[in-house]
């Protein structure tokens, strides 16, 4: 009975540890639309993984990376804005996934799990993907942290100072793709982006340095995962939406804390 709970908690924590810092950079670099597009296309990866029999996670990684590369290629045309390109690519991928679905029999119930996540069904193989992929992503992120921050603050200035801007942009997009694909099982294609964005947005109010914000976002993501999981066990709530809900409640609490702090620091008015 507790075996699967442990696995769920380990899987959720593994995703949260990566989602914290990656989500912060996604927020800073205004890549929320990119993240949302990736998570929608991840569903094509799920179907592809089932059709080709290569496994869901491998399929999702392939499709997410392909979408990221396709976006880089198409975004060179200045006549179509980036968010429009992302909308086209993501929904084309989503549509293709739904069309291909007819070739996979009795998958519709399973599909719901991939749309909204099924953290309670995390397998040992999933855990290996999450912790292995997560470790790679965190190591890469740590290695490029300073130049990535520099180009986030001002891309041309960073380029003049010798930062390989195009390379780092590509590597970071691939990192987001990997996280999206791996987190699919935990929070589902439709909710991945929320685990990236909401803890990071909450952390912004509590932080004065980029690193502090990354740590705070990670802690908030872990707390959200455990709270959501607890609610699922206690009240039989669906786990993944409960996780996102917990993250949202923390965001509102952060809003309140911020208001109180501002009220206190402001001079008393008569």
């Amino acid at each position: 009975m507790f075996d699967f709970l442990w696995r769920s908690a380990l899987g959720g924590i593994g995703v949260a540890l990566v989602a914290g810092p990656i989500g912060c950079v996604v927020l800073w670099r205004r890549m929320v639309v990119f993240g949302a597009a990736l998570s929608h296309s991840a569903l094509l990866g799920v179907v592809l993984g089932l059709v080709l029999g290569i496994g869901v996670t491998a399929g999702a990684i392939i499709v997410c990376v392909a979408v990221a590369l396709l976006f880089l290629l198409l975004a060179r045309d200045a006549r179509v804005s980036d968010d429009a390109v992302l909308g086209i690519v993501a929904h084309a991928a989503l549509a293709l996934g739904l069309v291909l679905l007819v070739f996979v029999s009795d998958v519709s119930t399973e599909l719901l799990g991939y749309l909204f996540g099924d953290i309670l069904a995390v397998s040992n193989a999933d855990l290996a993907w999450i912790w292995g992929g997560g470790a790679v992503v965190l190591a890469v992120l740590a290695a490029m942290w300073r130049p990535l921050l520099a180009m986030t603050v001002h891309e041309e200035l960073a380029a003049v100072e010798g930062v390989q801007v195009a390379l780092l942009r590509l590597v970071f997009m691939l990192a987001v793709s990997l996280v999206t694909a791996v987190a699919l099982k935990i929070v589902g294609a439709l909710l991945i982006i929320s685990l990236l964005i909401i803890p990071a947005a909450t952390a912004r109010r509590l932080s004065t340095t980029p690193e502090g914000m990354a740590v705070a976002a990670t802690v908030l993501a872990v707390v959200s995962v455990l709270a959501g999981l607890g609610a699922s066990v206690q009240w039989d709530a669906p786990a993944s939406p409960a996780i996102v809900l917990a993250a949202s409640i923390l965001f509102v609490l952060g809003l309140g804390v911020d208001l109180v702090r501002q009220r206190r620091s402001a001079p008393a008015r008569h």
Partner: protein
Amino acid sequence: MQHVAVPGTAVRAGAPAADALLSLRGATVSRGGERILTAVDLTVGRNETVTLVGPNGAGKTTLLRIAMGLMRPDEGTVWRCDGLRIGYVPQHFPVASTLPLTVDRLLTLSGRVPGGERRARLAEVGAAALQARAVSALSGGELRRVLLARALLREPDLLVLDEPVQGVDMAGQAELYALIARAARARGAGVLMVSHELHLVMATTDRVVCLNRHVCCEGAPDAVGKNPQYLALFGGLPDGVAVYTHHHDHVHDVSGGVVPVADTHHGHHH
């Protein structure tokens, strides 16, 4: 690259002049079928300050980007001396409010520098009090000074400044130009900057290049100021309306406080 052989002078391939830092020959750029720059020659040497003036859309920023290697000209050659270190202050520096960043952290983004060094550079630009402030809370003038300090931290051979006094009040502008000149002279660095106010940069500029998609005229500041091409572009002021120049016995630091000039002859009390 091509050199025109002048009888009796030897031209060393690749190095336009002994103390040259960068040299452009015949730089030509088109975008969307429109010529942005036509056959522009530009050279900046050590200990030399070159100021680009010109109306909006004259291609000033494009020329700076070519000079720094951020873009290539369609035709023409660009030469930079080996290992040229550029300190760049861009015209626009929008800091995302989602990113918590202090001035001190901003100064470390281009590379690890000791804290004493950071304090010294901020003090040099009159911004010592700003070290712990959030970048997003800086005024236009404060941000200019901080960006200059950041550029100086790189121990540049060449300072490239795109409208370095934008958003600074009149009194502050003259102070900032004097500060740039002092900082460059102390390092033997070259300066390439864009400015709208020829009368303000006259005192500290060696050479003015008047640009309007091609080089209209260039030379010493007072000569360019009388050039009919320049006057046609800027509708020059009649002689009697020359900007009144006078000497201050004090300068203002970044917070507006009065700082006495070392060689002042008379006291100044507030």
